[in-house]
């Protein structure tokens, strides 16, 4: 791949990859490391992927694998005890709730969603990949992606309610690291 083509690839995808990484890693420094590592792997091994149309999926898949490989299994085990049913219907006021919140708060709420749901949910909202491509990227069945999207949305809505009430310190919504760029949005 030429330098020009590589630059084009970076420009096309690094921002979305950063948002995905930020939702997974939950801090900007680790998210940047993940994005850089992903492109480094592309630069050193990506040439093996001869089908350029799959570059986007490859990048998201690689970033997710690097995240899984590099993270420590923390003691903060996921708990779904207060998880509402995934199929609960959305209320009209929930749309207004999101509109009132700033980008950083919505990202913080997204980061509080259990990891198993967070990865497909973030990819869904990034709108870069279809649910079929998400299934491919995360290496899970299509039906599992649909199920996790459904349940993840329910968790996100609960987190957004908590965020709106300013209950970010109650342990359910994690602290969002300083991200001046995002807060300006």
């Amino acid at each position, binding site marked *: *791949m030429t*330098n020009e083509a*590589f630059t084009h690839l*970076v*420009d096309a995808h*690094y921002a979305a990859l950063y948002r995905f990484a930020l939702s997974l890693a939950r801090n900007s420094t680790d998210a*940047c490391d993940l*994005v*850089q590592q992903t*492109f*480094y792997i*592309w*630069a*050193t091994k990506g*040439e093996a992927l*001869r*089908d*350029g*149309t*799959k570059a986007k999926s490859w990048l998201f898949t690689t970033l997710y694998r690097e995240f899984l490989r590099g993270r420590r299994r923390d003691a903060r085990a*996921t*708990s*779904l*005890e207060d*998880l509402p*049913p995934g*199929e609960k*219907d*959305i209320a*009209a006021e929930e*749309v207004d709730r*999101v509109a009132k919140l*700033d*980008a*950083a708060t*919505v*990202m913080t709420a997204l980061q509080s969603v*259990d990891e*198993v749901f967070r990865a497909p949910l973030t990819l*869904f*909202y*990034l*709108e870069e990949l*279809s649910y*079929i491509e998400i299934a491919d990227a995360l*290496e*899970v*069945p*299509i*039906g*599992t992606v649909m*199920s996790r*999207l459904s349940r993840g*949305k329910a968790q*996100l*809505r609960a987190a957004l309610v908590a965020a709106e009430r300013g209950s970010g310190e109650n342990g359910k919504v994690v602290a969002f690291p300083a*991200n001046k*760029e*995002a807060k*300006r949005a």
Partner: protein
Amino acid sequence: MNNEEAKFRLRAYRPGGADAGDPALSEALEQAKRDPALGAWFEREQAHGRAVAQKLAAVQPPAGLREAILAGARASKPKEPAARPRWRSPLWLMAAAAVLMLGSVLTWWKAPVAGATLDEFAVNFVARGFVLQKHSADLGALRSWLTERQGPLPEALPAKFAELRALGCRTLDFRGREVSLVCFERGGKEYHVFVGRRSDFGDGAGPDAAAGPRAYPKTGLVAATWSDARHRYVLVSDADLATVRGVL
């Protein structure tokens, strides 16, 4: 397709409309156009999705990240790709990918759930995705719901199931036999218990007496089977082998 099944699929429809041509979603979309209640729900769901997507898109990478990526890549000296034969041109590959994707989606959408035995069927049923007909964390309520529909009722589940949280249940048909499905969760992992009447499985279409847990690598799922005096059970989970073993 009932409205709950339509909602299950439409929740995977991206808010920007990028999935408008997806054949697996088109039937649900048509149903949303015909049914005012479903249509109103879908509008709210899409509006909510658009709002979240807009907020997410407003999160900007830190200054300098792009330059750091490019500098790091230059240091790795990427090579020029070799010339490709014509059949590997992007246009041909895109067309082939589109045909394959369309074919796989249609196959997934239309094909009945495969499985010669209840355990095979159960794994494929979970892998394909399904909708619960009754939502409740109260096992008594689930039992009442299944009783009303004369679905097979589990006599007793392994003691460790007391530590799981019930999600809901449904009934289904496996090759003409009634089967109940009761779903649980713990720690982000789901546990689906299929229950069939032992008398219905005298012809070898039921699982063996006690087996598993076994991994089904193609689906990423694990299944275990057991029986009691009146019923045969299949547990399917997305947890790993050791975790599933721990609840049995």
